[in-house]
């Protein structure tokens, strides 16, 4: 493999990694604060992409469709949290089962509305070019996804360390009962966190649409990959997800080139190795029980 192909593939891997980070960040925040493995997360991702697809088909610009899709998914998140998850607070298995049932329902509804054909989102015309450095040609859209991922990481860092909301959420991960005893409305925090996670899934769905396309079954692929990212990175730690996602994105992309039939196995083996060496994940603070 020549250097030029390798560097382009590295960028692709990085772009996928950033996409996985955006998805896993939502998953890991929900897991950390609310103690829910949101099995509908991949479905949120796919639905977000489909919503943008419908808007784009109606001549709405990509830059308007993006925030609308995010908002739609955040609202879906609020509704689900208030209508369903709130009823089984504190029952961990029931919460997971609920998200599982909702994943079935939403995925089937999406199939009903948008069909089973493979669709793809058009790359916005502004970014539909490539930059060349000598012989190296980089698609701009992938660079853009990497930038958005980095910006999101910076924003999360700022919120987590410098704002009151971030402090509440950090405290919520550590000791939920104490946060509630301090007079903070935990119900509101939970709704907010779930909506935020769903919105992030929607965002990554729209950004991932041009890279991955949309098809039945993508939701579970995305869910599994982001679960692996969360396990590798560590529970409730978005920093861990950031590193884990880049790692998984790069290894998966390169693995697909060198061992096309074993790419999934390689990603899985990385997870197993991490689990054996550090059961709490690379950046986790300990396994909760």
């Amino acid at each position, binding site marked *: 493999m020549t250097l030029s192909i390798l560097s382009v593939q590295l960028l692709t891997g990085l772009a996928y990694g950033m996409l996985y980070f955006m998805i896993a960040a939502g998953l890991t925040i929900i897991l950390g604060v609310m103690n829910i493995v949101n099995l509908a997360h991949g479905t949120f991702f796919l639905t977000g992409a489909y919503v943008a697809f419908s808007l784009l088909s109606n001549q709405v610009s990509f830059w308007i469709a993006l925030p609308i899709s995010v908002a739609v998914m955040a609202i879906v998140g609020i509704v689900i949290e208030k209508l369903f998850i709130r009823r*089984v607070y504190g029952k961990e298995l029931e919460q997971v089962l609920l998200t599982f049932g909702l994943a079935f329902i939403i995925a089937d509804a999406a199939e009903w509305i948008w069909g089973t054909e493979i669709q793809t989102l058009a790359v916005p015309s502004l970014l539909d070019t490539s930059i060349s450095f000598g012989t190296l040609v980089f698609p701009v859209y992938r660079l853009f996804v990497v930038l958005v991922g980095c910006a999101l990481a910076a924003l999360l860092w700022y919120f987590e360390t410098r704002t009151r909301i971030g402090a509440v959420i950090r405290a919520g991960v550590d000791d939920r009962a104490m946060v509630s005893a301090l007079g903070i409305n935990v119900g509101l925090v939970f709704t907010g966190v779930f909506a935020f996670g769903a919105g992030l899934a929607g965002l990554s769905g729209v950004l991932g649409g041009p890279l991955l396309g949309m098809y039945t079954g993508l939701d579970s692929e995305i869910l599994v990959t982001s679960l692996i990212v969360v396990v590798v990175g560590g529970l409730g730690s978005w920093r861990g997800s950031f590193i884990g996602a880049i790692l998984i994105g790069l290894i998966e992309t390169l693995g697909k080139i060198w061992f096309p*039939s074993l790419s999934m196995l390689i990603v899985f083996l990385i997870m197993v190795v991490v689990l054996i060496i550090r059961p709490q994940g690379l950046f986790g603070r300990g396994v909760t029980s």
Partner: protein
Amino acid sequence: MTRQIQMLLLLVIIVICAPWIMTQYGLTLATEIMIMAIFAMSLGLIMGYAGMVSLGHAAFFGIGAYTVALLGPLLHNVFLLVLCAILLSSLIALLSGMVFIRTSHFYFLMITLAFGQLLFALFWQLKSWTGGADGMKVSVSMDLGFGDIFSPLGLYYVMAVAFLFIYVLLRLFVQSPAGRIIKGVMENESRMIALGYPIRSYKLLAYTISGGIAGFAGALYAYYNLFVSPDLSNWMFSGQVMIMVIIGGVGTLLGPAIGAGLFIILQNFISSYTERWSMIMGILLVALVLAGKGGIAHWFAYIGSMVRRMRMKKDTRTKPKEEEVSD
């Protein structure tokens, strides 16, 4: 114990007599139910008796089915072939369990899910062996030593015997000292650690047995369906089996089998009217969870205890001095 023997006798009678009142289609369906009941009981064992919630149990089902599919042309002895499937799936359950059981329940759920998808991807991607997404035909014959069994009725009885066998086996395991220790670990892990039990070994034992039985169900499925595809290891299939267990009742042995029966009957019935079975299944799960009343086996137990309580109330009323009756 006598109640359990009565229960078993009832089960045997139902299983033997069932074909007399069924159509040809019903018989095929009942055969499938027997296989899925074995699979659901294997998941029910680790979910209800060891507290391990797996969303990747179809991995072992797939291993069992593909073992029969791939080794079928080489090994003609049914017993040997099925034994291979059981041993291989138990071995993989043992090895994977050694890593998975180190983690707590959420991690366990996520990791088993990823493991199931890994096998799904392998069956999908190793196209030269498994035929990839198209699946592969299984060329085997159910010859148990007295001729090839290919009639639906014969196949039904083979699967029914397998189901009863697994039921008795699991009943004995659950009541054995090891089974009781495993249940103790689920109910109070720290106490069992304090009592000096090597809890990981016991959990691993349950997981390995469960994986082996799931592999057995997969092997039987290959004989029944004569066709295998990667979907047998997909997490959606794992999820369906989990729904069977929940419909039937977590923490009971026969509950998952009842759940499997109801699930497959519903699936066939509803699918003939609408394509939206998957949505209805989701609604069913959400409703069951929100109702919070457990599964069918729990309802029976609840009704049973209600009847008993009413009888007791009647007894106390006849006595001159009324006493508080508590359950």
